[in-house]
């Protein structure tokens, strides 16, 4: 592949455009429509800027903005190369969708501090694109840390004790990760004298790694571990489920796309363009990384089974899915890399759809717990249909985004040079089944059950190991067995029913969502769940919510389908192939 580096201001412009929007958004705090208009215009400008570079990048051009030396020997450079454009295009494209959704969501709930929310969102996107286009490890670190700072206000947005605790945890985890990344960067700079990304790895680092493999391994461990915090690798994942206290658009774009993917993206940069696949292989550090990923993706899937809060279940699903990507980067066969990288956009489209659905359900019915969602397909048919499509994609059903990437991952794991890599293929298949196990009940009960008549979900609510095992060894009847989440087996919905029976005036509020648009005060202390007489039926023409939310949901779902049906035409697979070609791994 011939590569031409062209000086161009667009990478920097794409970063700065949303940063420059922040003062505008803050200044317009009294005029909501103009303020949101500014967000939309900025998002579109950003997408245009990034999109305009895609054809060139596919032709082997690298656009670079060089701002001069930052610290001795290291420049502040932003460059749009294939890997950067993959993440940049994804984040900026989905920001447009999320901006519309945010308007529907924030106004639907009549949230406080919306100006701060939109400003912080713009800052987050600015830094996310900076992560994408960073031309060396130090610039990447700058963007990575600023992304932490910019997203913190969004995590703590609720200003409740829980939100503040989640924010603290988020800061603590990500800053510890940041310190590890910085330490790794210092080591790389010391070993190689350079930190600029290069397809196939930094040459001088490969040489240094030969003479001092132990230090090189330490550097890799620090970098992968540090980025792994945001990639929610176990055991440093627990900030992510807690961060679900954030407004749903934040969970959607940041905690399924921008923030967590910045961690994954960092790992991709480190394995492919700092160390390079060859050095990673010769140091023998790919396999441990893949093993951590495999353990994470299985464990997280199992934990996801037991989450009754929809967003928390989605969070654990995210943890699991992110590890697919890391797994591909650890296995390092060309197909595995392709699958892993393609899973970045694939997971993004699917998970964004799922989060948007969860948010729409929250806004319209104030329901957060899955156990209260039986029959909700009647109330929100389009939303739940999109949910079903995205969930199927997660499980890897053909013709959807998840299938293509998982296919490549499977092929790649089987074909990997290291013996024993095939076990990763088994892990992938098992995880696929677990995906079905935790998504299918949601879809099934939404469409085929009703609040009064929902059956048991033995796989989700029964004790692990089966009823008999629990009964025999604990000497208690299965009904009393303590559940993993601390509640008891079946009291949840019954209790809710009871409460609802005592307070009939609450139903009225939950029942008619459109009233809540006007007084959102009660939104926070609602129990949610169906009204007493069951969900009312809405038709399939969008009566269930506003188009500010339905539009983004359907767009994201369409993206998930498009990526499954035509991954090359939909550009992402072509970008991924370009990246793999640059790494020098034989395709």
């Amino acid at each position, binding site marked *: 592949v011939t590569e031409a580096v062209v000086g161009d201001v667009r990478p920097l412009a794409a970063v700065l455009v949303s940063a420059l929007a922040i003062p505008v958004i803050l200044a317009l705090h009294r005029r909501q429509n103009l303020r949101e208009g500014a967000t939309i215009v900025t998002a579109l400008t950003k997408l245009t800027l990034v999109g305009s570079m895609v054809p060139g990048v596919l032709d082997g051009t690298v656009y670079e903005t060089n701002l*001069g*030396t*930052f*610290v*001795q020997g290291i420049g*502040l450079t932003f460059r749009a190369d294939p890997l950067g454009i993959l993440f940049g295009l994804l984040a900026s494209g989905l920001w447009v969708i999320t901006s519309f959704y945010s308007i529907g969501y924030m106004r639907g709930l009549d949230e406080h501090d919306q100006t701060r929310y939109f400003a912080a969102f713009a800052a987050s996107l600015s830094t996310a694109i900076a992560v994408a286009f960073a031309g060396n490890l*130090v610039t990447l*670190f*700058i963007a990575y*840390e*600023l992304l932490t*700072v910019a997203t913190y*206000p969004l995590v*703590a947005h609720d*200003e409740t004790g829980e*939100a*503040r605790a989640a*924010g*603290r945890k988020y*800061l*603590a985890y990500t*800053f*510890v990760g*940041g*310190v590890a990344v*910085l*330490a790794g960067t*210092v*080591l790389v*700079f*010391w070993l190689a004298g350079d930190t600029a990304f290069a397809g196939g790895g930094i040459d001088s680092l490969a040489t240094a790694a030969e003479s001092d493999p132990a230090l090189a391994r330490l550097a890799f461990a620090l970098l992968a571990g540090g980025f792994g915090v945001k990639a929610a690798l176990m055991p440093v994942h627990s900030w992510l489920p807690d961060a679900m206290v954030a407004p749903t658009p934040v969970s959607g774009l940041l905690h399924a796309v921008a923030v967590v993917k910045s961690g994954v993206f960092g790992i991709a940069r480190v394995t492919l363009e700092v160390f390079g696949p060859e050095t990673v292989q010769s140091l023998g550090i790919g396999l441990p990384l893949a093993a951590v990923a495999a353990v994470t993706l299985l464990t997280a899937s199992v934990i996801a089974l037991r989450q009754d809060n929809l967003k928390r279940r989605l969070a654990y699903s995210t943890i699991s899915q992110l590890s697919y990507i890391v797994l591909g980067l650890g296995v390092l066969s060309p197909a595995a890399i392709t699958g892993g990288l393609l899973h970045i956009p694939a997971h993004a489209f699917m998970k964004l759809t799922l989060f948007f659905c969860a948010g729409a359900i929250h806004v319209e019915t104030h329901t957060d717990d899955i156990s209260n969602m039986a029959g909700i397909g009647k109330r929100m048919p389009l939303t739940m249909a999109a949910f079903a499509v995205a969930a199927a994609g997660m499980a890897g059903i053909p013709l959807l985004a998840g299938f293509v990437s998982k296919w490549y991952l499977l092929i790649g794991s089987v074909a990997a040079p290291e013996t024993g890599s095939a076990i990763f293929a088994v892990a992938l298949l098992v995880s696929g089944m677990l995906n079905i196990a935790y998504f299918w009940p949601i879809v099934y009960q939404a469409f085929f059950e009703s609040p009064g008549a929902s059956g048991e979900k033995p796989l989700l609510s029964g004790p692990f190991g089966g009823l008999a095992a629990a009964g025999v060894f604990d000497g208690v009847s299965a009904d009393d067995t303590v559940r993993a989440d601390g509640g008891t087996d079946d009291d949840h919905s019954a209790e809710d029913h009871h409460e609802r029976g005592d307070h009939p005036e609450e139903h009225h509020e939950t029942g008619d969502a459109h009233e809540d648009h006007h007084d959102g005060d009660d939104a926070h202390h609602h129990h949610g769940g169906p009204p007493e007489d069951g969900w009312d039926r809405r038709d399939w023409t969008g009566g269930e919510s506003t188009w500010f939310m339905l539009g983004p949901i359907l767009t994201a779902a369409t993206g998930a389908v498009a990526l499954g049906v035509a991954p090359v035409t939909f550009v992402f697979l072509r970008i991924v192939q370009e990246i793999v070609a640059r790494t020098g791994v034989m395709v």
Partner: protein
Amino acid sequence: MTDAIVLAVVVPIVASVLTLASGLVFDRSGWYVAALACVTELALAVWVGLSVLGTDTGRIAYKLAGFDTPEGIELVADGLSTPVLVLIAAVSLAVLVYARRAGPRGNAFYTVYLLLITGLTGVTLTGDIFNMYVFLEITGLAAYALVASGDSTRAAHASLKYLIIGTIGASLFLLGAGYAYVATGTLNMVDLSEQLAAAGYTSRLVVAAFGLLVTGLLVKVALFPVHTWQPDAYANAPDSVSAYISALVSTVAAYALARVLLTVFTPDFFAAIPLASDAVVAAGTVSIIAGSVLAVLQSDIKKMLAYSSVSQFGMIVVAFGLLSQTAAVGGAIHLLGHAVLKGGLFAAAGIVLRETGARTIDEYAGLAGRAPVAAGTVAVLGLSLVGVPPSVTFVGKWYIAVGAVEQGVWPVAAVILMSTLLTLAYIARIIERMYFAPATEPSTATESEAAVSADGGDSVVSSPEKTRSVSVGMYAVVVLAAIAAVALGLLADIIRTAFLQETLQGVFL
């Protein structure tokens, strides 16, 4: 051309006398004389900077009264002292603008303030070790007086403590200078560096001189465990004074330490006595950790910021003690950056106190709603202090960490990197409270003032503080500090290539 160097010392001391004299005639002339002097000082500093840039060697010297060195005293502007000189001039002007509304007022204050500028400038520019002691004493005495200008008894108490400990430090320094003189018969720094080598680095006199000089300066820098004067002094001084001395007094002492380590004793000394370097690095490392832990334990904002300085100066001392050029660059950058940050934070804390009466971390709850600009600057300055890139702290830390790795002192490298988290531990508390905690009523019971002001009604206890106004100039100062915190990080490489590089290369040949 070299006249600007001597003028930079002469202008403030003359202005100091002028302030006093004109005060006899005009009641309110003090601020104007001081302002004129500070503007002149800044112009002189820039002039010196340009002159240094214009030379090949990156060093210009002025021989006082025409006496030749080593007998005479010379004032030297080189790549290390010039940035500090510009810093002093800029901060002096900024704090003067701040103090116009924030006080303390009166010609006596401005007189001592200008005297302090003289001391700081002198320490920075002198090339003579005894002369350095003289200017250190001028600095110290002026600083004691300024701390005492707070009107509470606690300020007087803090000042007394500062005076006693500071004098001990200065005396140790003087003793060290004496030992060095006995060993070599010279006081000129450059000459000393040669004569010390001639006298033999392992000679007891030389080692004793080193120990005394460095210990004396570490007291002035306020390193743990000889920091005890510093939190009281910073916390009880008037806001303008806390901002000024936190920005410059320890900074200039740390600069003097760098001079003693690098110019007087030189890396050759440390090669002969490795323990000396290890001791300095160890002292700094302990201070990084201890200062941070103590800062986390504070509930009073100014105390917390003061202990934070103990920690940050630990890092600066480590940087110069590592004897690597990379680390020394980092130390110099962190020295400049920390001065701007800490001065800005103290100034912002002063604004918050005047606007809302909040002085403890808990009282900062919901500050973003009550004083958005002040809260914003505290957030930016705080995050910069943590070392979020591209702030100046990050750049300094980067060089120091790379230097530590180069020297192979892994534990120190680890502590320097971890210091980010230690700083975050106390900064994040404030930011979280300012933005995400519900506002609490400024408490009437937590402070001793509640008892003092028992003559008023309970509901208006804190209102005298609330009514104190904040000038645009005060806001401009802290906003500028916040901008500088980030801008200096982006421009640090210019400072490195233009000034630091050449001088430090001369040291680490």
